[in-house]
């Protein structure tokens, strides 16, 4: 499923190149983006670090980062592993992928910021795919410093 691989490649690159607005455009309007931690998931607890239950909330987050919030200046680098495709239903493909997210400060010091897995649903329409839902399940439950730019 090359189109799904391409989608996730652009997902990582858009974030790493600080094209947050392009990243938002990878989602469909009625989407769901959530960052949760494995600690909560394994205890069946619904807590979220971040939750946008539609595309407007994603737009609001990005606009707030651009104009309002202050956070540590950094570069992100996502390394996304192979997709494990679970199946398809009505053109919506479900898959998992592991990720590693490295963060580098302006003086070039790099740290592992977060590792975990994506649980994704993507809708296929012709040659294109849009994200219906992304649940980031972070093994890294202790957020180093703070979490601003999306995972």
């Amino acid at each position: 499923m090359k189109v799904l691989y391409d989608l996730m490649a652009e997902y990582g690159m858009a974030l790493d190149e600080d094209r947050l607005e392009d990243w938002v455009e990878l989602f469909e309007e009625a989407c769901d983006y959530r960052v949760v931690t494995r600690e909560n998931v394994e205890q069946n607890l619904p807590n979220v670090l971040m939750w946008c239950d539609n595309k407007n909330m994603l737009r609001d987050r990005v606009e707030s980062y651009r104009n309002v919030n202050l956070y540590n200046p950094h570069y992100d680098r996502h390394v996304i592993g192979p997709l494990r495709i679970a199946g398809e239903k009505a053109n919506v493909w479900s898959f998992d992928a592991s990720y590693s997210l490295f963060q580098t400060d302006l003086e070039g010091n790099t740290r592992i910021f977060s590792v975990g897995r994506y649980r994704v649903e993507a809708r296929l329409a012709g040659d294109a795919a849009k994200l219906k839902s992304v649940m980031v399940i972070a093994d890294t439950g202790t957020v180093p410093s703070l979490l601003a730019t999306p995972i």
Partner: protein
Amino acid sequence: MEAKIDWPRNDYSRVPFRLHHDPALYELEMERIFRGPAWSFLCLEAEIPNPGDYRTTWVGDTPVIVSRDKEGAIHAFVNRCSHRGAMIVRNLRGNAERLVCLYHRWCYSSAGELTGLPFRKGLKGEGGMPADFDMRAVSPRKLKVENCSGMLFGTFQPERAEPLDKYLGEFGTGIIKRFLSKPIRILGYSRQRIAGNWKLYAENLRDTYHASLLHEFFVTYGVDRATQKGGVKMDARHRHNMNHAYAASDSQEDAKAAYADTAARLDRMQLRDKKLLEFKNEYPDGMNLAAPTFFPNGLLIQINNTIGARQIRPKGVDAHEVFQTLFAYADDDEAMVRHRLISANLVGPAGFVSMEDGEAIEVIQRATASAGDSSAVVEMGGRDPLRDLAHRVTETPIRGFWSYWAELMGMEPAGGIK
């Protein structure tokens, strides 16, 4: 460096930067505050509802188990085997009749008593512990636990500590009851590791001056502005504090005049999805922001309809973890739980109105490592005696924190204010 402080002033309006960097002071804080007579926040009672439930926590740098025995009584004791010092419980939580150390299988009751150990009497008459070995005498160190409306506090030195209700004061017991007026349901946890001394976080919680300046989201979208009705409230000893504000108690015009720099943004920026900031008033006092903080490590937090508790966990002189537990009320319907989780976008490590704290604290820690004998300036709101204020343009509660910190550390300046 010797652990002695030359306070430039006895009103704590100057705070030497080295108090955030000196490893000897850090060791003394662990001994004199966290293992001393202060009452530390342990966890919420709702986290261990059933007999046999336990969970692990931290009091300063000491690992602690909080557990409920089969009669329902709550205990807390050091999570360290009496034998060779291994951590007894290694998971975050669970339910067990007895707790067993992995190394040599020494067994502990829910009350933290050593109750058995393998081969105590030897094997076939050989080996074993001496006949006079007293299990009781070596049981792990216990904390005295008190329950204030469902918020559990513990102290290592009950003989020196004030009774908890006196320690918290009417202010503390009243506000805890307000948050925990009915049964709660835990929604989950978040953790944030900040590369700064733990006291920078404690100061941050008492610094109402920064809230609407550092966290521009507050002002831009009108969640919390210094122009709102609100203030700081402290206990009689000024060691605890509550920053608070009342919803919709200012006008857009007031705010524009006060925040000239961001005024232009107030009209221009609007959230596309306004449910993020929806506030359903559920308390008679009408506060939409309440952040009561309890010396040394506890905090309750309400921002709109997200409610929770936080614990500060020192991790060496230059780092700490902020452990946050969000909850709902047990009688909330599904829509209300969802609303609280959406509101949770405001708080925590990724919170719209909290993420900046991590950065502010880290840049202080980084820049002050080389600050030598110089001090922070804490004069906003004046140098007057410590008292409650009906405004938030102040840092007075920070001075209160240092006053009590210095008392417990035995390092008060001559004539230090209280």
